């Protein structure tokens, strides 16, 4: 059933590409139809998969001479992330309702990207996963460079080259793993059980992990993320932050850690306090958390604040992965979901609801606009999203980050102390943005009440999108078991080295 999320998205993309020009309304409804169908399938698949382990959906020989299978399967981690993708897709369509330029092409690229993302989360064959991973790169380039804003061509090319460089590293690692294992299967489970030599894992793990982590926004390879997020059209920034960065983190988990578990073993010597790749990547993750938060605090562009906050929040995911214990990694997966929803919401408010009406993202200019009075819906939506982003109890971010921190404390308390600084700064930058953009008492701009400066009313797609994403974060925050029950067994199985 879940496999149809992939097929439907690609079919939708093809249909949109063939649609005649000038049928913008039709293109929108079609896109919404495909996105909602994907979400419905994802929800159904999630519900059907509760309490089950890994289930194989499709298994067909694809390239028999190399043992590559078209192997789609789902475990708890996949199901949660597919659900996230469905949510992000529907919200993305809703928040791009006002796109008038080449509408059908926009949704063609959008759905192709979504199809690739679904594919990555459901692939259990090494190379199939890689194929879907690369399919997701190209649409991003066009989405940003055609429909984007600030320095869009630069940002799009930067993003494409970073992604492609990352996937080149991954490909080298995967080819080497394939040649080394001598196994006739490229299934992730089979390869994990084949047991690659430890010395090989030691150098292949950092290669593959870094390759994937580039897309997860790991410091210092994060620089594509803020520029890309800012330049992208709203729906694309929502997808970038919401699901594409998760692709990287998912690859780190599903391929990096699952395939090369011994790559995380201690080196046997210690260099400036770092004794293994695990220490190295945990350090980078913590730096990302703190650095992203500090840089977000200094931004003058509203969207850059959110862009850097993504780097900070993704740091928690990577830190959670490096704990290598049940609670930390469960937290990492939950954080992927949580950040996907919350970042999507924040980008939607900043990029669509506010920017499309005020035509500025400069906090200094927004200060003079008194948006809390003129756009109360946006203000309150941002208050809620901001609270979720800060990690206040009751929202999904709280549960996720708490688990990551508890997991990390068990390994190395210093990581937690440093990450705690990141959380405190996180509260500060969210507060600052909230106050400046919405609740400022600066003297109002003299043009405010002139004719032609009224702000357009909030439309139904915006309300629906905000309700959808806020609801998802609240439900998971108030009743985290709904996802945790699915994630935990999958993480346990992954840690145990098998896939069952």
């Amino acid at each position, binding site marked *: 059933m879940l496999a149809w999320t992939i097929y439907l998205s690609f079919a939708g993309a093809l249909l949109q590409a063939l649609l005649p020009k000038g049928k913008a309304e039709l293109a929108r409804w079609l896109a919404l139809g495909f996105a909602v169908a994907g979400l419905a399938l994802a929800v159904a698949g999630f519900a059907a998969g509760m309490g089950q382990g890994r289930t194989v959906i499709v298994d067909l020989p694809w390239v028999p001479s190399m043992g590559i299978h078209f192997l789609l399967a789902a475990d708890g981690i996949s199901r949660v992330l597919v659900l996230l993708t469905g949510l992000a897709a529907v919200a993305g369509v809703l928040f791009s309702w006002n796109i008038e330029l080449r509408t059908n092409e926009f949704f063609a690229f959008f759905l192709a990207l979504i199809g690739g993302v679904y594919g990555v989360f459901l692939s259990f064959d090494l190379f199939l996963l890689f194929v879907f991973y690369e399919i997701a790169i*190209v649409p991003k380039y066009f989405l940003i460079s055609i429909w984007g804003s600030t320095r869009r061509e630069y940002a*799009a090319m930067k993003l494409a080259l970073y992604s492609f460089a990352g996937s080149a590293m991954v490909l080298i690692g995967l080819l080497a793993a394939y040649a080394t294992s001598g196994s006739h299967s490229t299934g992730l489970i089979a390869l994990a059980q084949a047991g690659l030599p430890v010395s090989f894992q030691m150098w292949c793990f950092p290669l593959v992990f870094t390759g994937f982590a580039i897309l997860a926004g790991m410091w210092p390879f994060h620089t594509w993320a803020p520029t890309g997020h800012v330049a992208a059209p709203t729906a694309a920034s929502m997808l970038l932050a919401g699901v594409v960065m998760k692709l990287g983190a998912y690859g780190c988990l599903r391929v990096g850690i699952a395939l090369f578990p011994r790559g995380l073993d201690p080196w046997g010597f210690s260099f400036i306090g770092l004794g293994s790749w695990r220490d190295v990547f945990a350090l980078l993750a913590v730096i990302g958390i703190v650095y992203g938060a500090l840089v977000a605090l200094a931004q003058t562009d509203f969207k850059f604040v959110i862009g850097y906050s993504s780097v900070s929040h993704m740091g928690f995911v990577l830190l959670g992965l490096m704990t290598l214990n049940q609670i930390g990694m469960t937290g990492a997966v939950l954080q992927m979901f949580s950040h996907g929803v919350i970042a999507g919401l924040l980008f939607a408010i900043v990029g669509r609801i506010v920017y499309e009406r005020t035509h500025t993202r400069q906090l200094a200019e927004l200060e003079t606009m008194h948006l809390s009075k003129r756009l109360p819906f946006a203000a309150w939506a941002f208050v809620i999203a901001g609270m979720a982003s800060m990690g206040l109890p009751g929202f999904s971010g709280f549960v996720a980050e708490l688990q990551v921190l508890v997991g990390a404390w068990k390994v190395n308390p210093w990581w937690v102390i440093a990450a705690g600084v990141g959380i405190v700064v996180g509260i500060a930058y969210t507060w600052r943005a909230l106050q400046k953009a919405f609740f400022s008492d600066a003297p109002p701009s003299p043009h405010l009440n002139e004719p032609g400066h009224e702000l357009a009313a909030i439309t139904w797609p915006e309300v629906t999108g905000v309700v959808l994403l806020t609801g998802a974060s609240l439900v998971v925050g108030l009743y985290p078991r709904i996802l945790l029950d699915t994630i935990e067994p999958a993480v346990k199985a992954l840690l145990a080295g098998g896939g069952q």
Partner: protein
Amino acid sequence: MNYWDLFHATLPVTALEIAALVVLIVDLGLLRRASLKVRVTTAALLGVAGCGAALWGLTLSAGQSIGVNFELPLLAESGGTVAAQAGILILTALTLLLLIDSVFTRHVGEYVSVVLMAASGGLIVAAAQDLLVIFIGLELLSLGLYILTAFAKSSGKSAEAALKYYLFGGMSAAFLLFGFSYFYGLTGSTNLKQIQWSMTASGASPMFYVAWILVVAGLGFKVAAVPFHLWAPDTYEGAPAPAAAFIASVSKVASFALLLTISMNWFVQSGPITGQRGVVTAALRQYYATWPPLATILLVVAAASMIVGNLAALAQVSVRRLLAYSAIAHAGYILLGIAAHPVYQGQGRLIEWAEGNIGPAYLSANAVLYYVLTYGLTTIGAFGVVAVVERATGSDRMDAFLGLHKRNPVLAGVLLVLFLSLAGIPSLVGFWAKFNLFAAVLGASAGAAPFALVALAVALSAVSLYYYLQVLKRAYVMPAVDETPIKAHPVTLAVLVLIAAAVVGLGCFPALLQGWIAGCYPVG
């Protein structure tokens, strides 16, 4: 050997030559007063029919060898040869179909018959097992290419390109022949197998290095490998588009098939160097144990081609020159696959590793053929798009592609698919070509050197995305200066869409073409 056997084994070549003559007779005799349009269409269709007949002949002659001695054939229709020849014929037919829309010459009959003769030279090259036959085939192919390059008589660029191509080509043919003469002098034979046996029996002398380098210089020119690549950008830029497409595809397939034949015969480990003394030979002897000399030379050339091709392509503003440098880069990847030919190792692991009938020796040959054939297909399509744009805008510069998605959405879609395939994006056929090749290289020879080269190749193909995106950016992203629609001949458009569909289809089902190529090899 009697004449019937000869005829039987050379059916495809014969069919092409007959078609070439028929085209000439029809065009110069029957259609003297007909309009150019009718003549172009007739000539191209006759040429395509000739290719079809040759394909049919290929099915009849498959498995045949000719020569005085069955063990030492002159031509062998076996294994990868059949795949390469079928590829040559199909690609030739496609380039002929692209001719229908062209206006660069009034002498269409001559053009088509030269194409067919050059293609028959390609067929001979792909099947040749003897140095002299190789040389004759190569010259038949090359002379055709020189003429084709110069065919746009009203264009100064065309003449310049042809002269450069001809002078470089003549020089490299001399190198090749000189190298061949060394082999004859050292072994007393012109047959590839016989030479191999002599090398194995006598032990290789360092003189072979000289001979190998000369041969690689000659063949490196044909495949446009660095440092013998200088002709490629000028020729690709100056030649009429269908001719450039022919040079970039058919000639490449034939030359790489020849390199495969040579490497399959000569990579066999020929024992330690004997008889000589001195520092150089001692060093050589030590090295010789790990890498066969020809492979070493090819690896150096491959690495240089990948680096120079990809980096030089970054700076191009002419799309034809960009395609030329990208062709150089692709030649580098392919040479890597040839150099890593695992004949000399033949571990049991590989046999297990590759399911089906493909033995270890054929694994990388299979990947190389897959790469060359799909690359040829893609590059013909790319030249087809360039030709249409060039006719409408009068330029092949990148800025001529501005707003292509508005001016002709189908053409822009084809360009998108083909360029992404050249960049190696899945799930297009270009990805699988690279993937198979790199997997074969790593599977054939473990160790740091092949791994480093594959890593270099993968990293450089990430670089290549940049220049392909530069063209696509103009077609899709940047605002159009001129929004008048670009019209393309329906046949051209149909061919281009067909090529794009094949690139997507073969990419989604990579096992189809692989299975077909593997099926050409003898079982066991």
